[in-house]
């Protein structure tokens, strides 16, 4: 009963390093999202995808890239990490079929950029 799984859960990077966050869902959902959460700022949408092979920019896409090569996976990449990207990152998914509005979230990935 995995739901949405994010890896890694914690990571410390140095400025300029690159990394990829992986999100995997086993619910056959079409829609997937990457959000970041900073204190006092709620959840801000980075990128999202409404289907395999498609991606779109959210509110704060700069400095991030994404790919959705397989329906069940949504990757978030940081090509050259900056301290401003220190945050908790949440992946989420849902389906337009029988839409209830409920997003299914992963447990979050805490990223620190030094």
């Amino acid at each position, binding site marked *: 009963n995995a739901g949405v799984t994010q890896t890694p859960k914690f990571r410390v990077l140095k400025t300029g390093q690159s990394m990829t966050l992986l999100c995997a869902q086993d619910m056959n959902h079409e829609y997937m*999202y990457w959000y970041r959460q900073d204190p006092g700022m*709620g959840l801000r*949408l980075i990128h*999202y995808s409404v289907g395999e092979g498609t991606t779109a920019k959210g509110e704060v896409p700069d400095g991030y890239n994404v790919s959705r090569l397989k329906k069940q996976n949504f990757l978030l990449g940081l090509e050259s990490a900056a301290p401003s990207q220190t945050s908790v990152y949440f992946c989420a998914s849902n389906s337009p079929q029988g839409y209830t509005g*409920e997003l299914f979230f992963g447990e979050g990935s805490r990223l620190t950029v030094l």
Partner: protein
Amino acid sequence: EDKVVQSPLSLVVHEGDTVTLNCSYEVTNFRSLLWYKQEKKAPTFLFMLTSSGIEKKSGRLSSILDKKELFSILNITATQTGDSAIYLCAVEPGNTGKLIFGQGTTLQVKP
């Protein structure tokens, strides 16, 4: 630009009090408004409100949507310490699949 604004940003009450959390929005082609509760980890879903469902209730929590004035409120009656959390409001513009969240309201309920 789509925008969701919540108020207050933080609130401290005592057990048994009633609280009202506010969410106002400006979005293109509004489809739905959602409320989430976030404790230690990921947010959990509370309610969805749409044009055809402008009022929801579950136990001590209730919510209404005013589509004319573009806001929603979340009421919690007889608060308990377990209600302490961040409450997030989100709106879906059109049939885009994306959800825009507000800043959240941090509620602390003291014994």
